[in-house]
């Protein structure tokens, strides 16, 4: 695996930091554990971690210059869980700075490229993790999903990406972007791996007060349960204008496959969908403006060495350390929370959030699942949207509503358009991970043939 990384990562650029010594040490320990028949499923499996996850004694940059030299003294809860399960962590993957972006071009260091076409983006913000899985630079990876940052890059890289229910996976040690939306999720080559990884990272954590107390089901064994009779809602708002024709065709064909498996497709409406983007871009930056306030050059991370006095140090460190998109969102969020604007923006966004959640609650009274495209387009060329934030924001339009409602979603590869992968998204009610995995797995079994029609560039 390390050889594979060394041979191709100069072209893909999935990793910010590689930890070969740590990986070899973990591998040796795993070999020892594997002598025993009860070794965990993940024992010895090489995984990659998005660089938003805190790793003890391993640099954790969050894709930002402001944390360019930051080495945390503690592991994120999920990292400890993976290590306890015997996983081998090969490195930290590239990402949009502080997970703000949909192409990994906003990394403070360098962009990552799509393994299917190196002139295109891998999606984002977990673009490094998705590219690493797609390019066989690891078996599976963890990403984080605030508005689609696991599912969208998984779709654009032709791999599986799951966002769990908010609170299913501990956020302790996940560097916060928007606390009420952030969730850690697996990016894997297939749905079975996704279930295995979900098993390893799910569960209540006393260190995260928003983590759920609910028991963790056996995800892997739930994969094989029958899908016949499952009612799948197709929200008309998601197939409206804005979805690329090629993507639409591939997705509709995939939906036909679901009926072959015995699922029933039902037309539904989620009427507040059109407000999701605006709602997200008030709430997420507002929370981010507070979450990113701590990076001031005083305690850790980058500081401006030429500053005179502590005030100047704090201002210059932030001015230089943060990239343009991060600054844009800090300003947006600060504005939205400001006295005189709070009611019109933040408070109203919270109210719309309730309405969007209600849309889903009502829909799930009549359907078991919702199916949509994951992204309105396939991977776009590097540089195409960097100067047009609104069009960049629109690439998450299918994945934003789920996090606003706190519900889980999964993206599975469902074919190709222009030779590039297309993702099919399923969403389920809170804690509906088992039904998501079951449906995604059933689809994956049926659609296996189509996946082989295109070739990767690496």
């Amino acid at each position, binding site marked *: 695996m390390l050889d594979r990384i060394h041979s191709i990562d100069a072209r893909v650029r999935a990793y910010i930091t590689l930890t070969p010594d740590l990986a070899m040490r973990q591998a040796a320990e795993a070999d020892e554990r594997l002598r025993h028949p009860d070794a965990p499923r993940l024992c010895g499996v090489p995984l990659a971690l998005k660089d938003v*996850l*805190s790793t003890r004694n391993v640099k*954790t940059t*969050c894709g930002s210059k402001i*944390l360019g030299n*930051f080495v*945390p*003294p*503690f592991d*994120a809860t999920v990292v400890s869980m993976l290590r306890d399960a015997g996983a081998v962590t090969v490195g930290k993957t590239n990402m949009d700075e502080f997970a703000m972006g949909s192409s990994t071009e906003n990394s403070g260091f360098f962009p990552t490229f799509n393994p299917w076409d190196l002139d295109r983006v891998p999606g984002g913000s977990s673009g490094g993790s998705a590219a690493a899985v797609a390019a066989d630079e690891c078996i599976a990876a963890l990403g984080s999903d605030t508005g689609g940052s696991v599912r969208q890059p998984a779709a654009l890289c032709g791999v599986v990406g799951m966002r769990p229910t908010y609170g299913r996976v501990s*956020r*302790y*040690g*996940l*560097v*916060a972007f*928007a*606390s*009420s939306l952030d969730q850690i999720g697996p990016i894997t080559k297939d749905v079975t791996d996704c279930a295995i990884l979900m098993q390893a990272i799910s569960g209540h954590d*006393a*260190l*995260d*007060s*928003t983590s759920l107390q609910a028991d963790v089901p056996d995800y892997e064994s739930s994969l094989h349960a029958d899908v016949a009779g499952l009612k799948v809602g197709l929200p008309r708002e998601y197939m409206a204008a804005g979805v690329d024709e090629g993507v639409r065709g591939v997705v509709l064909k995939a939906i036909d496959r679901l009926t072959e498996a015995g699922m029933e497709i039902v037309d539904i409406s989620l009427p507040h969908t059109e407000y999701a983007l605006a709602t997200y871009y008030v709430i997420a930056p*507002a*929370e981010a*403006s*507070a979450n990113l*306030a*701590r*990076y*001031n050059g*005083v*305690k*850790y991370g980058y500081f401006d060495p030429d500053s005179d006095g*502590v005030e100047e140090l*704090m201002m210059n460190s932030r001015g230089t350390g943060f990239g343009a998109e991060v600054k844009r969102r800090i300003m947006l969020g*600060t504005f939205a*929370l*400001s*006295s005189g604007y*709070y009611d019109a923006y*933040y408070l109203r966004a919270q109210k719309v959030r309730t309405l969007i959640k209600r849309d889903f609650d009502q829909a799930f009274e009549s359907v078991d699942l919702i199916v949509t495209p994951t992204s309105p387009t396939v991977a776009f060329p590097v540089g195409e949207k960097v100067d047009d934030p609104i069009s960049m924001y629109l690439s998450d339009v299918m994945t934003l509503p789920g996090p606003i409602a706190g519900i889980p979603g999964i993206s599975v590869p469902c074919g190709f358009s222009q030779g590039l992968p297309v993702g099919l998204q399923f969403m389920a009610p809170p804690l509906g991970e088992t039904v998501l995995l079951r449906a995604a797995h059933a689809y994956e079994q049926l659609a296996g043939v189509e996946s082989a029609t295109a070739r990767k560039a690496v």
Partner: protein
Amino acid sequence: MAARANGGYRVVIGLEVHAQLLTESKMFCACSAKYADAPPNTVVCPICLGMPGVLPVINEQAVEMTILTGLALNCRIPAHAKFDRKNYAYPDLMKWYQISQYDLPFCVGGHLDVTVDGIDRRLGITRVHLEEDTARMIHGRDEAGEDYSLLDVNRSGAPLMEIVSEPDMKTAAEAREYLMSLRNILVYLDVSTANMQEGAFRCDANISVWPRDGEIGNSKVEVKNMNSFRSVYRALEFEEKRQIAVWESGNGPPEQETRGWHEASGTTVSQRTKEYAHDYRYFAEPDLPPLVLDEAWVGEIAARMPELPSALEHRLIEQVGIRPDDARQLINNRELLRYFEEAAASYGDPQRVANWITRDLVKALGDAGASPSESPVGPGDLIELLKLEDSNRVSGKMARDIFRTMFETGRSAAEIVAQQGEQITDQDEIRQAVVKAIQENPKAVADFQAGKKQAAGFLVGRVMRATRGRANPARVNELIAAELG
């Protein structure tokens, strides 16, 4: 008071008190909350350092202490509470936001009853809420004359309870009485040391002054940097006079601003005017779900309510028979009260014990800079001394000297008496000393016989000196009178 004295003005005072709680751990992490004696930056963890990716977990003990305080202050405990982020940028604030409570605090709408100059006053409590303390900044200047600032993060994340009063106080004396009563309540609830000098009890005051014949407006001056009850009193007195002067000069109302109390000059100094007022951009803390305060839980907390200082004071006066001034002095110092209770338990005259404590013990402790619990003379030792006096083995004067010796040497009353000798009550022994004094001081005798009755006092003094203070003073007086006939 001053408003009355000035006739034409009304003074409006409200107080915000921050009290550090005596919890085991900090507000949102597992670090110890007892960091006072620790070297700087040693009682810290990623959470109270505000490192990337950390999350807060609510300290249940701190919530219980806050609710207990609210109940003691007659507050309502709403069923729903939440934490919020208060955003401001300062180097002592690790996350650049403070987790506090904005619109749903734990306790609302209470009151505190006080008596000032014999007048009963009910002072409103707006709210009691919980938040986290900041790190401590230490500013200095090095040998080269460069200013520097040091940061001690030990205090960061310590649980801090804020008690906000209604603007119900009309004088500096009322404000001081409110603060002392509040301090006593926190101490008796065991929720805070409420020690102002150590920063465990901090007070900011809002004060405004308005002409009696006009409306009370909205602007006010916030006064900070007061670190004793006395400085709160002085600062408010100063501010009242200053604001009246602004009105008198035709420039009222005084500008809304924050002013700092300057102890040395006895004045307040402008720190921040309205244009620089903070916009804290409060919003609900997304890392902490809203809390539902179960009625049964609040009931359990209420059941732990100890006797409050006001009730205790009442009981001391009405049932134990202690003079009001002494009762107040005992209540104001919980250790002193404990000392009293222990001593009085084995002695029949509680007021006499109180006299000794408020007079001799307090004086000796003050001279030694010690607290009652550190007193070398324990409650039992004091009672032993009182019993020696009761049995006439020592005089009242001797007892006070023996107490001083006990305090200074740590020896028992019995030991000291054994060494110095008991009181001399024997008629003959005293008569001998009296006769000797008369023989040796003919001038005093002559003065006395010439009508200068105070000359007898001189002779008493000679007798007491000759007996090293042990002669029973009453007997000495009797015998001198008799001998000089």
